[in-house]
């Protein structure tokens, strides 16, 4: 009898002490030690309200934009690098060349953004810092940023804050043969008889906040306010203005600007294969611009590797009080611009992306994680149209 109880008791104890097989949490994607993204962006644009020619004239433009994103992770450290170039072929850039007044049909923007992230797992905090460098023929921008994010103990909520300072120099000549140094501001060729501005610097201070909350098993929401202050030369020196009566000048805008934007996001997982991503955005500034946009991106997971992602964005903007079209400004106006980007407008953007996540092994311990191809068509109420094509190849190395 005792033996029987002893046997049953021992078996029960063994069962109690036995460890169940651990089920790996496959829902969390574990990043590789080194992640590499090869990116190519292609942008085609056409319109007939170029600010370079005072609100009339072609806005035909092509941008070829190769880029590379690197992320190296080691324990709680991450090193980031984003670098690339935009080669711009523009019909009106030929009117802003300083040496010859035409035939400068190409321009380039080169940018390098290194960053560092330190995670403190015990406090669920990560701290980040970064630098930025961006250069084109008439523009040099140097920036620095610092920020942190904090996750709640139950991983349901996270808060982030980031501050960025940008210091821009609008002088021309850095990537132009025979110069390779900043010379002076570039004005329209017929308006170079005088200096229109007494400054060439632009400073930007930007504060970004973010709060995300997991609502339940299938819904996540976030709120993202952003405050920006700019001072210095906020006008573009080669933008022409034609006043009533054929008098001509260059664009003039205030030397200070406050901007406030607020984005609300809501992501929902419907059924087992569909993800809805919604963004509503509000914007206001002291140039008098107000805007509202709604964006939806819906991912349909055809199978575990392939997703089809259509997207649509509707944008409406009330224009700046400093804007008027070609020959509509009065000579008595204090500030003036004929840049249609600052006008009252509506834009509809729609497109489709195809995403393929093969996790295919390549030579030299490389893995092909993902391929994404996206096309978007943009149509603005003043007749401007654009085509955006992006290809991203994501790879990783253990």
């Amino acid at each position, binding site marked *: 009898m005792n033996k029987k109880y002893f046997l049953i008791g021992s078996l029960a104890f063994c069962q109690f002490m036995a460890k169940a097989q651990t089920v790996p*949490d496959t*829902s969390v*994607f574990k990043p590789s030690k080194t992640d590499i993204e090869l*990116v190519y*962006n292609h*942008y085609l644009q056409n319109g007939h309200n170029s600010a*370079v020619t005072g609100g009339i004239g072609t*806005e*035909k*433009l092509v941008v070829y934009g190769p880029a590379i*994103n690197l992320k190296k992770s080691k324990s709680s450290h991450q090193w980031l690098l984003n670098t690339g170039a935009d080669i*711009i072929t*523009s*019909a009106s850039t030929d009117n802003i060349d300083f040496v010859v007044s035409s035939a400068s049909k190409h321009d380039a*923007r080169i940018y390098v953004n290194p960053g560092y992230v330190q995670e403190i797992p015990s406090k669920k905090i990560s701290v980040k810092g970064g630098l*930025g460098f*961006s250069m*084109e023929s008439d*523009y*040099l921008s140097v*920036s620095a940023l610092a920020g942190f994010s904090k996750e709640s103990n139950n991983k*349901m*909520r996270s808060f982030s804050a980031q501050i960025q300072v940008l210091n*821009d120099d609008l002088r021309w000549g850095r990537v132009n043969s025979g110069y390779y140094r900043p010379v002076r501001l570039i004005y329209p060729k017929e308006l170079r008889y005088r200096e229109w501005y007494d400054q060439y610097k632009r400073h*930007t201070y930007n504060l*970004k906040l*973010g709060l*995300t909350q997991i*609502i*339940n*098993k*299938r*819904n*996540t929401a976030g709120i*993202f*306010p*952003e405050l920006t202050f700019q001072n210095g030369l906020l006008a*573009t020196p*080669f933008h022409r203005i034609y006043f009533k009566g054929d008098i001509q000048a260059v664009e003039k805008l205030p030397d200070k600007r406050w901007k406030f934007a607020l984005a609300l996001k809501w*992501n929902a997982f419907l059924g087992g294969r569909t993800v809805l991503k919604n963004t509503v955005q509000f*914007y206001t*500034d002291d140039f008098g*611009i*107000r*805007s509202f946009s709604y964006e939806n991106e819906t991912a349909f*997971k055809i199978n575990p590797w392939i*997703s089809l992602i259509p997207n649509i964005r509707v*944008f409406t903007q009330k224009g700046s009080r400093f804007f008027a079209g070609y020959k509509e400004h009065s000579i008595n106006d204090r500030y003036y611009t004929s840049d249609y*980007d*600052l006008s009252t407008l509506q834009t509809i*953007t729609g497109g489709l992306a195809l995403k393929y996540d093969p996790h295919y092994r390549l030579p030299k311990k490389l893995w092909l994680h993902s391929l*994404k191809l*996206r096309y*978007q068509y*943009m149509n603005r109420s003043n007749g*401007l149209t*654009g085509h*955006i094509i*992006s290809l*991203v190849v994501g790879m990783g190395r253990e």
Partner: protein
Amino acid sequence: MNRLKRKFLQFCLLATSVFWASCSALRPHERVFVNDPEMQMGQDATDNFSNYVQSIREGATPVGNTKGSGGCGCN
């Protein structure tokens, strides 16, 4: 009008507090959907370029735009 605005703000604050408080914690096995890469709030490389174009072609700068500079956006 100001009173109406204040009432509306108070309602928004209350609704947000109730909404926030009603979010209950999820256990690890319940996070399959919220941990899906498509459910994340961040932007990928294709979003970054679209945002860059928007930040030049619109006077209203979008939240989270990646523009490294004011940029000329010459056309």
